[in-house]
């Protein structure tokens, strides 16, 4: 399993999660968990996904999620989970 964290940051609106989920399913990326919160009026969503069976490599996924974010008007990023584990767990 290659756990990756996808984050979405921006103004809340209808269909953000739907559009991201469509992209993930089209690229064979499995969603393991979703959490969301509002910080300083901004919509923050975090998805834990598994990209081990994904049909594209990570840099391509990053690029396409970035483009999708531009389209919706939010920032979307995908990062390997390890960076968060290293920083926040002993």
């Amino acid at each position: 399993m290659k756990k990756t964290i996808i984050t979405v940051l921006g103004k809340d609106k209808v269909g953000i999660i739907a559009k991201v989920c469509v992209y993930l399913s089209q690229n064979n990326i499995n969603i393991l968990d979703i959490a969301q919160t509002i910080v300083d009026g901004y919509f923050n969503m975090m998805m834990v996904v598994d990209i081990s069976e994904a049909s594209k490599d990570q840099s391509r996924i990053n690029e396409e999620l970035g483009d999708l974010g531009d389209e919706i008007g939010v920032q979307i990023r995908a990062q390997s989970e390890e960076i968060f584990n290293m920083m926040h767990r002993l």
Partner: protein
Amino acid sequence: MIGINEVIETNEMIHKLNLDVRTITMGISLLDCVGADVKETCDKIYEKITSSAKNLVKVGNEISDKYGIPIVNKRISVTPIALVGGSVCKTEEDFIEIAKKLDEAATVCGVNFIGGYSALVSKGMTKADELLIRSIPKALACTGRVCSSVNTGSTKTGINMDAVKLIGEIICETAELTKDNDSLGCAKFVVFCNAPDDNPFMAGAFHGVTEADRIINVGVSGPGVVKAAIEHARGENFEVLCETIKKTAFKITRVGQLVAKEASERLGVPFGIIDLSLAPTPAVGDSVGEILEEIGLEYAGAPGTTAALAMLNDQVKKGGVMASSYVGGLSGAFIPVSEDQRMIDAVSAGALTLEKLEAMTCVCSVGLDMIAIPGDTKATTISGIIADEMALGMVNQKTTAVRIIPVIGKTVGDKAEFGGLLGYAPIMPVNQYSCEKFINRGGRIPAPIHSFKN
């Protein structure tokens, strides 16, 4: 499972507070590249560097993509060239040939700097060492990516004052040869006391002779993250402040450790060390001066600055050491003037002087860094400034360094523009009294009494 708030915190550090990995530096030994003549040596050097580091930039970018963390620089350090070229280089021009080859290899690998056009002369100079040192001005003027350093002293050996005198002249000559670019050549040259063998930061990186054939060293940064963290400790006592800095340094360093391990695995090159440094850039919010202000000083340079910096440096180390399996290099807060907006502001306001900077270098890494002085400063005065800094390193058993730029054609009140990461700097006044007779004595200053530990 990681929580959303932890994810938000990390991404804020990266995107709002300029957290980055400052450099992945591949150290490459060139000791096996000595050929029968200069040409063969150059060819072997080129071959070894380009084959060892051909994937360095690519791997750096892939890791950056995977974790969403910028890796700003990819660089190469090599064995001090005075050692490599010693048997084949009979003239300054021979050494300059090697410098050009290093530049070419760096360009092909896509790295922005290659360090190691260096000589280690803390006790004495061989003929080759002296030739290399004398070739530095031309080598730096005719190359773009080559960085040079000379180690002129150590706690164990004392200070080589002949070399210090020579370096003063070399700095003036380098300034003259690159005067069209505000004497930029001097920004690529550092003189050290107690130079570490595994420093990943430029301009002083070289691959020491105690190192393995190839090694990956990583320099982390993040002054903006520390500044933002201690904003939450405003008005609190030192215990709270120190705890906050330590925790932040731990997190920053963990990212460096992650990147270093992965780069080492992907490149098939052993992991050397993490250099825990707070390395500022001219960007707003990426400044060590700003941290000092947040600690409670009106400007860097105000009374209390040395104490604040000593505390900051120590907490960064305490937090960082636990986050990494191997720590080395320079590891501490950098205080370059031209590369730190708030340090520039402090100099412009008259709050920060050369003498105060000298005091600050007693308690942090590394030394007088990226300081622009009037172009008509005498070589012996520059040697005097270097000798003072070397003495601080020698007696305090720490690394100290000088990267000073006499900007030809400019004087106090003017500004020198270096561009990019090197930034710009107001010309600082230098003490006008002479040290010529002191510098002209020649010889070396003996090692201090506390170095005799055997």
